[in-house]
Each structure stands twice: as C-alpha cells, then as structure tokens.
C-alpha cells in the first residue's frame, strides 16, 4: 500500500476546501499540501449555487456588521453562537474583495463597483453575485488561483475513507484511488475536512449525486462529535421533477409564488416579507399548501406550486438569470418569460456538522473542518440564503491557515500499520458479504425513510420508526448486501456502497437528534411540539459515537447581545 506524506491534507475541494488549500499554501513556501477530492478538483458541488454571497461591503452606508449579525441570528431562530456570527460576518467582505482580486467576475454597477441584490430574511440588499452562477465562478476562480502555486499535489478522484488517530492526535487518512482501486495512506500533521453536504440522504434534493455526507460519517466514526444535525434546510423553489434550484434571488427581484387557485399564499404565512421570509418558513408554507390540497400536479406527477418569474422582467431574466431561463426552457420545455415554473422544496443544506470551535478546531488536535460539513455554530437552526458561500470561503481561509500553523509546530506523526489494516478490512468486508440485497435498493429504502419521517414535518412516532428502519437497513448493509462488480479500476458500485455506509451513519444521527429535540425551531419542525421552547431547548445537540453507541449531550448557546425574541417576517 502506498504511503504518501504531506504537512497538511485538504479533504474535499469545494469552495471551503480550495480556499483552505490556498490559505495553507500562503502560510509558507515550505509547507507541502495534499489536496484530495473524490471528483476532479473543479467538479465539486460548490459549482451549483446560483444566488450569491452576503457581505457588508460598505459598512455605515445603509448596512452594518451588526445588522448582518442580527439578521443571521434571527434567521437561525436564536440557535447561532453569537460570538461566531459576529466574528465571521466581518471576514465576509474581506473574502469578496480577495476573490475579486483573484479574478471572480462579480456582477457590477455602472461605476465599476460590485453590485448586490436582496435575499430572503436579510433586512437590506447585501448579496453580491456573479450572474446566476456565483458558486461556479467562485470555484473556477479558486481552482485557477490554486494553479499559481507549486507546493501542492492533487489527488483527483480519491475517496477519503477513515481518519487515523494516534495518541489522540491526527495521524493520517486512509483513502482509495478510484482510478486504480488501490488503498492509499496519507500521513500528515493536520487535515481540513471540507467534504460538503448530505443532501442525497433524501430523494428530492438540490444536491449533486456525490453529496453523500462522507465527512460527517468519517468524523463520527473517529469519535469526533457532530453538532445540531437535526437542522437540515429545504430550499423552497426547486424545479420539478429535477430538484434543480430556481434561485432565491429571483424572488428578491420580484418573482412570486402561487397555489392552484392563483393565490399568492405567502401573505397568510409571512405578511410582511412574503416570499422573502426565511427559507424554513417559505418551505413549510409550501408544504402546507400542498397538504391542504392547494398544490398542483407537476411534471412526473409530483405535487408542486408555481413560481411566477415574469415580474423579474425580461432584461434581467436574459442576463443575470440566464442559467435559470436555460434550464427551464431546455429541461422542462417551459419559457419563464411567458409561463409559470413548477417548483417545490428540496433537501438542500446541513446547518449542523462536525463540532468545531470558533477557530474551526475539532475535538482531536490536528483535525479541522470548514464549509458545510463544519458546524462552528454560525447557522443555528436555519441558515440565511447567501450566507453559505461567504461562510465556506471564510471558514476555508481560517481553517487552512490554522491547519498550516498547527503543522509547523509538530513533527510528522507515526501511524500503526494495525490501525490502517483494521480500517482497510472494514471496507474490504463489504465486497465479501455475498448477500442478496442490491445497495441501490437499500439506498432507495433510506431515501424513502428520510422523505417520509425525517422531512420538513416530523413527529415522535415517525422519528422512532425512522430510527428503527435506518438501523434495519444498516443491518442489511452489513450482513446481506451484494456487490456484483469485483473490478478494481473505477468501480463505482463499490464507491457507491462506501457512500451508502456514510449516509446510513449520518441518517441515524439526524433521526436521533431530531427525536430528542422536543420543540420546533428553524428548520426542525415537530408537529407534536409546534412551539419553540427556549427554556428547555436553547442549546446545541451534540452526538458522539462511543464504543459503537451514540451518546447525546447538549451545550448552551453563546449569547453576546441579542436575547431570543419572537421570530416574525
């Protein structure tokens, strides 16, 4: 087995991972960085975000860091750690400027300054954007900028499998090269985990097929706690039947939502902000409309509501929303300049993640996390639209820097072959089960359980059922799965099986966290406990795997300035 040594490892190459890699390289020319991605480096799902990045670019001119922090904390339903929010919103504009200096084609005002637009639950327009391909342009800017540096090695299409921990410190990472099918051990002084989200646990999702929660599971298996995993965001307006988003920015520019009666139903749920209320509120409203019979049948027979983008105007639609227009025309055969577009909420974003502190350190020295997979406590129970891109950039930068500095202060770890062999065996066993269940059948079962019981509306009975079923699927996964493809080269069936293992571990944590939290807050809505309960539940859920069992405990929310108040839009 190949053993490869670097000072710093970056696992995952979306916005957070690429930004972390560049920052680690900037710390010192003598720092060697290994960049690992299970896809080609530039193909991570950060290419998908359309809407933009929130940042206070002109402090004092109608906006302030204080206002951005407050909007974020209110949006979080007061579960955000306020010191984290206050620190990171100040980094956001620095990152917008830095990416501009590296070539990001931000959309501009006539005078050459960077343009911004209004997004849901932000009190003022502060979302900068690059047409409706903001994530894509940021990705390409970072990927291209990375190519200026020399002191890194790229490992395209290597899937991270297990963290190796020695003497309670980071020691290395077991990975597999998808092209050769060979296992590889990376030995390094520190790592930034930046593997992105977990949307594929659900059937209807905005996320890429590759967004399978890998980093959450890898951390959990290594004994690192996960935080606030019950909070998963549904993006309100996703095109039926594909789940491809129609960006929230459209609503910022006037697009409205209609039910089967042609009624602008959001007036009954958020009379002041209407379609621009926080995402959890709009998604719930849409699902209530569908449940109460005011939805429509969309393509593929899927229940939906209608997005009317015509108020946005032809000029904007054809320029800064050309991706949306192209998708609707090409895929749905619908022209949004003339017609309504069928949409419904889709699983979108994990607010929770690997439990890290304000400096992005996990409980294991040398292991850092950034981006969606990390949970420093910024998003709380609901993330505001356009906060994720700047947070990926900012946490990437901070984690990359801290990981590099950490690496300069320690010697190269030594890892035991026994530990490596044990981990390899765990994966090799999957090939030897020789059972009868296709992994794809098991995956469909998991998707169905998550949609039915761990969706936008939850209750005790359903969550207990979900936990039982997830555990049952896990048993089948271990004891009765069959992998037919025994080749080594680009064996995507085996890769999919590994990913399903990750998904099952993460699903169990989400269902358990959701079952325990007996209140409704942000994106976590319990029909049996429909009210927020600050007395009992103003605290973070922490789940850790100890001796094969999941232990749940809680940690208070850090409040600096803003006491919880009623949340209305």
């Amino acid at each position, binding site marked *: 087995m190949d053993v490869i040594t670097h000072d710093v490892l970056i696992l995952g190459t979306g916005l957070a991972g690429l930004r972390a890699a560049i920052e680690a390289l*900037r710390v010192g020319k003598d720092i060697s960085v290994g960049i690992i991605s299970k*896809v*080609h480096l*530039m*193909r*991570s*799902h950060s*290419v*998908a975000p359309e809407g933009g990045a929130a940042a206070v670019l002109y402090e004092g001119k109608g906006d302030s860091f204080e206002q951005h922090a407050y909007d974020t904390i209110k949006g979080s339903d007061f579960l955000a750690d306020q010191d984290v929010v206050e620190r990171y919103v100040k980094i956001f504009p*620095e990152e917008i*400027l*830095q990416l*501009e*200096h*590296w*070539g990001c*084609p*931000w*959309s*501009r005002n*006539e*005078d*050459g*300054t960077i343009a911004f637009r209004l997004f849901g639950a932000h009190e003022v327009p502060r979302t900068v954007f690059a*047409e409706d*391909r903001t994530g*894509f*342009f940021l990705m*390409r800017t970072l990927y*291209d*900028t990375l*190519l*200026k540096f020399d002191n890194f090695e790229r490992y*395209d299409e290597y899937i991270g499998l297990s963290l190796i921990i020695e003497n309670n410190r980071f020691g290395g990472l077991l990975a597999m090269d998808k*092209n050769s099918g060979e296992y590889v051990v990376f030995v390094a002084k520190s790592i930034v985990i930046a593997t992105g989200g977990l949307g594929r646990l659900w059937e209807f999702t905005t996320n*890429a*097929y*590759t967004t399978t929660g890998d980093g959450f599971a890898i951390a959990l298996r290594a004994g690192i706690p996960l935080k606030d995993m019950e909070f998963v965001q549904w993006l309100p307006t996703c095109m039926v*039947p*594909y789940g*491809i988003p129609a960006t929230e920015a459209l609503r910022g520019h006037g697009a409205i939502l209609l039910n089967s009666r042609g009624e602008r139903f959001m007036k009954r749920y958020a009379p002041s902000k209407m379609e621009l209320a926080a995402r959890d509120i709009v998604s719930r409203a849409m699902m209530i409309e569908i449940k109460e019979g005011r939805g429509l049948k969309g*393509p*593929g027979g899927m229940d939906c509501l209608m997005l009317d983008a015509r108020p946005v105007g032809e000029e904007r639609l054809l320029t800064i929303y050309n991706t949306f227009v192209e*998708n609707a025309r*090409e*895929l749905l*055969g619908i022209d949004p300049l003339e017609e309504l577009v069928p949409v419904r909420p889709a699983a979108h974003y994990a607010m929770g993640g690997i439990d890290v502190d304000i400096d992005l350190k996990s409980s294991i020295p040398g292991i850092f996390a950034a981006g969606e997979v990390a949970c420093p406590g910024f998003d709380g129970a609901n993330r505001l639209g356009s906060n994720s891109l700047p947070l990926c950039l900012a946490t990437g930068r901070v984690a990359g820097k801290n990981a590099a500095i950490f690496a300069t202060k320690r010697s190269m770890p030594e890892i035991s072959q026994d530990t490596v062999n044990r981990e390899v065996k765990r994966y090799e066993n999957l090939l030897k089960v020789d059972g009868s269940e*296709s*992994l*794809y059948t098991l995956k469909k079962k998991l998707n169905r359980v998550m949609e039915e019981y761990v969706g936008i509306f939850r209750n005790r009975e359903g969550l207990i059922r979900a936990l039982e079923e997830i555990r049952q699927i896990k048993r089948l996964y271990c004891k009765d799965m069959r*992998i*037919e*493809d025994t*080749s*080594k*080269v*680009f*064996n*995507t*069936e085996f890769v999919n099986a590994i990913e399903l293992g990750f998904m099952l571990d993460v699903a169990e944590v989400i269902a358990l966290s959701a079952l325990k939290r007996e209140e409704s807050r942000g994106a976590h809505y319990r029909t049996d406990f429909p009210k927020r309960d600050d007395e009992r539940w103003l605290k973070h859920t922490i789940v850790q795997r100890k001796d094969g069992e999941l232990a749940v405990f809680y940690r208070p929310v850090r409040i600096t300035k803003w006491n919880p108040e009623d949340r209305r839009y």
Partner: protein
Amino acid sequence: MEVTLKVFRFNPEKDKKPRFQEYRVTVDRYTRVLEALLWVKENVDPSLSFRYSCRMAMCGSCAMLINGKPRLACKTIIGNLKTSVIELRPLPKFNVVRDLVVEMSDFFENHRSVKPYLIREDVEEQENPTNFYLQTPEELQKYVRFAYCIMCGLCSASCPIFKSGGKYLGPQAIAQAYRYILDSRDEGLDARREILNSEEGVWHCHFAGECSEACPKGVEPAEAIQRLRRLLL
C-alpha cells in the same frame, strides 16, 4: 416510451477489446441520458461505469459521445434525440479508463500551462487587498462569456487536431487564456505569449469550428482562438 441504450464497454482488467452492450430503458419526456444510465446501473448492470455529479450542467463530469456528438449526459433529453437507439461512447481523443470514463489529467495540465489566473504587477495588493479593482459592466461583458467554461472537455474532444497528451493545447486551454487576457484586471498577455505562440498554441488550429458547436455553455473557443491570433500578431 422505450429506447435502447447501446453502450461502449471496456474493462481493462477483463476485456481485450471494447464491445457494445444494449439495455432497454423506459423513458418519459423529462428523462435525460444521465438518468437512463443511472437507471441501468441501479437496476440492471451495476458494473457500468461513467462519471456524473451535479446533474445540472455545471460540474462538467458527464461528457460523452451521444449518437456521435460530444454532449453532456445531464443536458441531453432523450426524447429530443429523435432516435430509439442511443449510442453512448467515451469522449474521443482521450484514453479510456473504463467504459465511458476517460483519463483527463493531460487536459487539466494544458489548462494550467496557459497561466489561467489574473496576472498583475501589484502582487502585494492582489494578495492583501485594500481596495476594489473597479470593472464596468462593459468591461465585464467582454470576457464573461469565455469564463463560462466548465472544463468538461467537449470542445477539445470535438477538435480534429487535438489529442490528449499530444502537442496542441486544444480549444479549452486557449479559450481560458483568452478569458484572462480579455479581463480588464489582467496584465498577463506577455507572460502567456510564448506558450500561445508556440507550436502547441493558436497557430495549430485549422478553424474547423467544431469546438464552438460542441460547447454546452456557449463559450465559443473558435472565436477566442481567432481573436487571440490577431492579438498576438
């Protein structure tokens, strides 16, 4: 509606030479080639290998030859192909890893060789920004279309001159050099002149124009190459 996918198969561990395998798939008006392939993989033949990820034509993973034309599987609605047999092959001009998966590292190296990033004199400001580089909407419009490139490889695969690992950089890399050269913030024309002017560069192109036709994002590499030639003269 039922269609037949006729898929190029090659597993280097088992096959001496490539073969074609046929799968019957039921599709509707919304089914894309990618969904049909996934249905086969999940229900009929899990050993079928192909790349895919975002399924919204942004990541560039699922480039392949569909009925003889380089296309993205996630951007090709089967009904629009108007044939009941759909032939799927790996991208030409690239070495096959397995089935529809091709080796792309040389292609990425070509991209890197044209210095695809902003090059400026004020390195200190660029790395530690204090103020914005202003850019008017007109200046932005000049290059932004060329920045749509998702590095899928369709343009280079369609080029009669290009061969992965060969000398010619190919339309993808050259168009990306042009994207940065056109950017009002960039000062790197001279730094890129040598590679673009060399044997590997713009003079190799025969103006077949296939690249622009193949591009799924409207980048028009052929136009970029033509305009670059004028710029370099």
